[in-house]
């Protein structure tokens, strides 16, 4: 969670100084969802992400330095400098990509789940679905088909309060998204999106269904995004103080620290040591990214086809 928080904070400044080109959508505030869910998965399980994909990518174990290079559009970035923030992927880690198209990931993860089912090794595929994507037809199609095919697929609904600039209270027509998901015949395990352990436990229940032939399941969490839709979004649609209040009262990192100290599992010094380590990692990632080679003109036509 700390890696994601630090990564996103640095990406924010790197974007604002112009070192990172293009559109970037930050995940800060939502870390407990990505990490709580992905901590239950192995490299052989698949996830597919959203527009806001850095957190899911890091949680699934993708190389943070490679990611930072990719965002800086460097030749040895995770995607060779041709994916960028919205398409960051690492197939070997079971990360089938962030996605620039809202809702497109759910049917793709369904296909990965079909592959898992055919192989019969108890592996699963999960798609992260934002509140905006929860209104897309692709997600409805994928939910129905996953039930029909008893696919080992977990739909992770992550309501961060806004789809682009539109509040989810406005954009979602029904009172209760959970009922909507259940209407497809999918069991839903609800979790507190500010609490790592809550998401972790919900994911465990969902996987219990998926890994043992029970077909699809879902977890639903509410959370908040600290930044705007994209870096540079002035967020005029948000009340003053909204984010500050959440940062104060509902920060998943603060929650985690408090829980660790209370349980005595990690003391303050150990937690600080982790934070320092993370800080050094992100510093190194940015330095390496800034100094990494840029793509060459001959890279333009590389990887269009396997052969043509």
């Amino acid at each position, binding site marked *: 969670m700390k890696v994601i928080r630090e990564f996103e904070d640095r990406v924010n400044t790197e974007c604002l100084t112009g070192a990172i080109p293009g559109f970037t959508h930050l995940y800060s505030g939502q870390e407990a969802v990505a990490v709580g869910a992905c901590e239950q998965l192995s490299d052989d399980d*698949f996830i*597919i992400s959203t527009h806001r994909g850095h957190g899911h990518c890091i949680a699934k174990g993708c190389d943070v330095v490679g990611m930072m290079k990719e965002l800086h559009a460097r030749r040895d970035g*995770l*995607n*060779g400098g*041709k*994916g960028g923030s919205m*398409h960051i*992927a690492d*197939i070997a880690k079971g990360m*089938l*990509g962030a*996605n*620039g*198209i809202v809702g*497109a990931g*759910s*049917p*793709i*993860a*369904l*296909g*990965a*789940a*079909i*592959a*898992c*089912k*055919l192989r019969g090794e108890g592996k699963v*595929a999960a798609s992260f679905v934002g509140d905006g994507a929860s209104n897309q*037809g*692709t997600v409805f*199609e*994928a939910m*129905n*088909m996953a039930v*029909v*095919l008893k696919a080992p697929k977990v739909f992770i609904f992550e309501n961060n309060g806004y789809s682009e600039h539109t509040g989810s209270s406005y954009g979602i027509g029904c009172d209760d998204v959970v009922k909507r998901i259940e209407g497809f015949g999918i069991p839903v395990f609800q979790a507190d999106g500010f609490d790592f352990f809550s998401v972790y436990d919900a994911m465990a229940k969902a996987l219990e269904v998926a890994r043992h032939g029970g077909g699809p399941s879902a977890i639903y969490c509410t959370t908040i995004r600290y930044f705007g839709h994209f870096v540079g979004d002035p967020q005029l649609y948000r009340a003053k103080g909204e984010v500050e209040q959440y940062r104060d009262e509902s920060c998943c990192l603060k929650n985690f620290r408090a829980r660790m100290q209370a349980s005595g599992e990690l003391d303050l010094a150990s937690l600080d040591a982790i934070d320092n380590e993370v800080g050094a990692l992100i510093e190194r990632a940015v330095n390496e990214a800034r100094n990494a080679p840029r793509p060459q003109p001959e890279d333009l036509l590389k*990887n*269009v*086809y*396997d*052969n*043509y």
Partner: protein
Amino acid sequence: MTKKTMREAINEALHQEMARDPSVIVIGEDVSGGAGGSSGQRDVAGGVFGLTKGLLPKFGEHRVIDTPISESAIVGAANGAALAGLRPVAEIMFSDFIGVCFDQILNQAAKFRYMFNGAKAPLVIRMTVGAGRSAAAQHSQSVHSLLTSIPGIKVVMPSNAYDAKGLLLQAIRDNDPVMFLEHKMLYNDACEVPDGDYTIPFGEGVLVREGEHATVVATGQFVKLAVAVVDKLAEEGIRCDLIDPRTTSPLDEELILESVRETGRLVVIDESSPRCGLAADIAALAARKAFFSLRAPVVTVTPPHTPVPFAPELEREYLPDAARIEQAIRSVLAP
């Protein structure tokens, strides 16, 4: 060799490749054609055109997957299954339906390899194309030009049963996403098709007839028609090269250009609309790369810029016929 229809040839290719490679799956609406019916019978149809008949009993429902009518999820699932290491063959029945799942073709399958640093997405999407059965504007379109314009996918349009089998086997083994377009007017056409395994490489057109007076390029159902016209003109001493590109992406540019450089005259017959279509593309190719060989303006023969009509007499008017093709060839030969 035995004569087989294009329907039989495609069905045979699917059977043989699924038997050879356990990572091949077939997914689509009605691919067995009976799931959930009150008779309790599965595999009663094998798809609306009978192309996937017999696959379910042989390979089981883990590999022959009947889906709801959900084209986005069908193509999306094929995409995800391919990224996860399978070789899915998805069917979206009528190519007209790509409208509802175009994102999964245009933004996903076509771009995985490029955006994901060389990731493999070996999938095939089979679909029917073409007019001729009064199926009207939403079941008769030829979408190959739309698809050909997208980098990252390959587009195959067989014009006979022999090519269909060899090209489909190649398509399933190919490591790129392949759009496999089957013309519904050709399903019952038969020719000699080997029982065994063979593939036809992409980007290699075929010289169906040889002649020095003009080059005729035809695709899909018009290859057959063009053969009849070219053979008829040969009786008068007008001899034409007739080229079937077989795949529109990649396109066998060299075969076309070599021929045009010899004949100096080009007629292109294609079923997609005239604007920004394959015929215009091939005409532009000749203008770019064989301009000084051309002895007459290139002539394209296509339907008019209109949706496909329902009424049989209008549909006949819509589709190029032998008379229009003959007239086009004569017009490039006129002094």
